[in-house]
């Protein structure tokens, strides 16, 4: 067993190549931004530019096949690429791209050869940003209970309905969404996935006002939208995985969303907060207090458990090994662990953890944002309760047949 990302001579060369590339490709001002909630438009555009540069080299979705714009990169090399981006405060992709991160693997597994070429290439090359559209007012945990319909009409599907908890700020070129294609059909056998061009007439995007509202955001906090569809005509060739076969496609999508692929990025805010506690601010260091030190140690331990679950999932998925409950387990731990860590920060830093004030806020308000984000991140990508249900099914509790993890390749 070896946890170290230790470079072979070839990998050392690759790391050099990555670092040299990033030094020229990454513009100043987009690294180490602490406040994802207030990412301005220009910052987003710079990140998209970087995405196109990475995409042109096949490095935006590097583990994906070359023929669709990836690089067929090995797990170790992906780790190096991630590692180098993390070092400068960025991730892959360097912008919110839920429809690419989760729709990509789904199309790879369930799409036709023609669809893979046509739909995946622009995503993997960074030419489009794609949102995922799943939840509706009446369908959150119960995804199969969605009501948005896509009815076949000649060469098109006509879409009507409402999706919520969508995306981020600054719009998207495409959306990857689940719809009802057979309103009279049996539950789980009436759904399909379809790729939507967001410039089509009949689509209205309205921002939601949430606890962590504003800005580009990410999976948990940040800007979320409601999207309305009024007789939107979508070419039938954009339906992926076969009509009414959407629940099977969803297993792949949800496997990625629930953390089945893991991730190597640390919760940067933890390390930055510990640095802050160690340093003197306003004439004193938080870490001078032994009680605070104990809390900091406990907080750090929780962060390490979360990180190791993610590392394990990354290793399992990038080496194509069998998985069962691990995706949901990571997701559950990350949700509860992040809330726990945010509350420990409140106990450690006192009201300082709650302010965005320029004069007094630690880390330019990143801790205050984390207080809100810890709460808003409890529900996206399924609640803690749903994650527990998935874990129980996949462990085969009570002698039931063990449910299989979603297909990723």
């Amino acid at each position, binding site marked *: 067993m070896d946890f170290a990302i230790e470079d072979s001579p070839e990998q050392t060369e690759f790391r050099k190549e990555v670092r040299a590339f990033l030094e020229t490709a990454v513009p100043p001002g987009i690294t180490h931004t602490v406040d994802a909630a207030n990412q301005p438009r220009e910052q987003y555009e710079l990140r998209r530019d970087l995405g196109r540069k990475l995409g042109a080299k096949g490095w935006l979705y590097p583990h994906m096949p070359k023929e669709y714009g990836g690089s067929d990169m090995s797990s170790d090399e992906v780790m190096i690429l991630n590692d180098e981006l993390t070092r400068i405060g960025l991730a892959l992709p360097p912008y919110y791209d839920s429809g690419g991160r989760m729709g990509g693997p789904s199309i790879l597994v369930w799409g036709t050869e023609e669809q893979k070429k046509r739909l995946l290439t622009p995503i993997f090359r960074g030419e489009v940003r794609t949102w995922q559209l799943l*939840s509706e007012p*009446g*369908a*959150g*945990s*119960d995804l199969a*209970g969605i009501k948005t319909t896509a009815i076949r009409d000649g060469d098109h599907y006509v879409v009507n309905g409402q999706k*919520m*908890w969508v995306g981020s700020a600054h719009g998207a070129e495409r959306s990857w969404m689940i719809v009802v294609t057979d309103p009279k059909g049996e539950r789980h056998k009436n759904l399909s996935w379809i790729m939507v061009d967001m410039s089509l007439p009949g689509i209205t995007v309205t921002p*939601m*006002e*949430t*606890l*962590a*509202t504003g800005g580009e955001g990410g999976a948990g906090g940040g800007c979320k939208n409601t999207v309305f569809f009024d007789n939107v005509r979508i070419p039938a060739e954009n339906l992926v995985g076969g009509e009414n076969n959407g629940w099977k496609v969803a297993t792949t999508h949800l496997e990625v969303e629930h953390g089945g692929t893991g991730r190597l990025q640390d919760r940067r805010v933890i390390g930055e907060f510990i640095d802050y506690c160690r340093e003197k601010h*306003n*004439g*004193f260091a938080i870490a001078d207090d032994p*009680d605070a030190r104990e809390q900091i140690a406990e907080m750090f331990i929780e962060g390490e458990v979360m990180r190791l679950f993610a590392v394990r999932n990354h290793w399992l998925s990038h080496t194509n090994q069998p998985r069962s409950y691990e995706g949901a387990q990571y997701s559950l731990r990350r949700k509860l662990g992040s*809330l726990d860590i945010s*509350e420990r920060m*409140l*106990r450690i830093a*006192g*009201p*300082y953890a*709650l*302010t*965005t*004030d320029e*004069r*007094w*806020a630690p880390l330019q*308000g990143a801790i*205050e944002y984390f*207080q*809100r984000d810890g*709460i*808003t991140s*409890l*529900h*996206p990508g399924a*609640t*803690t*309760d749903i994650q*527990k*249900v998935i874990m129980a099914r996949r462990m085969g509790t009570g002698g039931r047949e063990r449910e299989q993890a979603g297909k990723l390749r």
Partner: protein
Amino acid sequence: MDLSLNETQKLIQDATKDFVRGACSREILVKLDRNKNVDVMATYWKQMSEMGWTGMAIPEQYGGSGNSLLDVAVLFEELGTGPVPGPLFSSAVLCARILLETGSEAQKKALLPDIASGKRVFALAFTEVQYGWSEDSIRMKAKKEGADYVLSGTKLFVDDAEYASDLLVVAGIEGGAGVSLFRVDAKAKGVSIRKLEGFMTAKSEVIFDNVKVSGSDLVGAAGGAWAGLDKGMLAAIPVLCAYKVGGCKKVFDISIAYAGERKQFGQVIGRFSRVQDHLINLVNHLDAARWTTYEALWKLDSGQDAASSVHIAKAVSSESYLNACDYGHEVHAGIGVVREYGLTLYTKMSRSLYHSLGAPKYHRKRLEKELKLVA
């Protein structure tokens, strides 16, 4: 033994319920929370003083109605269900009780009737940059100049200072030991009050830049204010705890209601045992906060040694409110973080009040002394 409320308390409860339903509906509170320019004082203060709430915790001889702390707590539990913002607690309970314990007869006669009528609004300027609620966390020093004093320094995260006409400032005196209390006009030359933004309510930075304070505004003995200050704070704390109990109760009520109407997988979510677990955890926090708070109030009202109970109540209610909101969010998931829905009003308040008048850690340390675990 009888743990029920008496008739007066039931009347107070009903009147407050009406007020919260009417003047402080969730719609209004959400608007207040979103719109930084809405004036909380203009919205509520006149009505609150007319109802006599500003005088409840003040004895009749000083212009109040001399209610028991339990009566006052019943009011605050209902205000907590709003949660109704504003300086009622800071001024009419906390500072009033501190003045009662520390002020000279002349000061009490001059100040308490104005607090009782709502004319003056007091805030307690205690905490500093190195935040804490113990006597030794006071580092600010006043300088004596003849019969007067000069105050310089920063008070931080001062609750309700933005609404105040008067500040009760806790500071030492140069060359002397102990802490003293000074009444300072909030608009006095050299005082600047700046509201701090963030995931919290009504906390300000208060800077004193060579502020002249008349010797007659020294409240209590020079260097000897701690005992009375502490006694006043200990009497006020359970009233703040009752406000948190009200918050927990409302979060429980809306979570139960939501679990009974939100349908997923063809049934209401309250039928799922995982959702029930959140509601059970929530009500356990609510009841723990409630009964620790009300026993402390009973001990204070009946003149018993209440210190341990007060420390327990504050330690429990701060954690309970935080956790109750977390469980409320687990039950509600997405809709709970939509600001318009209102659950986040309580979440924000639970975080904001967690440290006010001492975080659980501080009160556990005080309890260690009460339990004679340390000298």
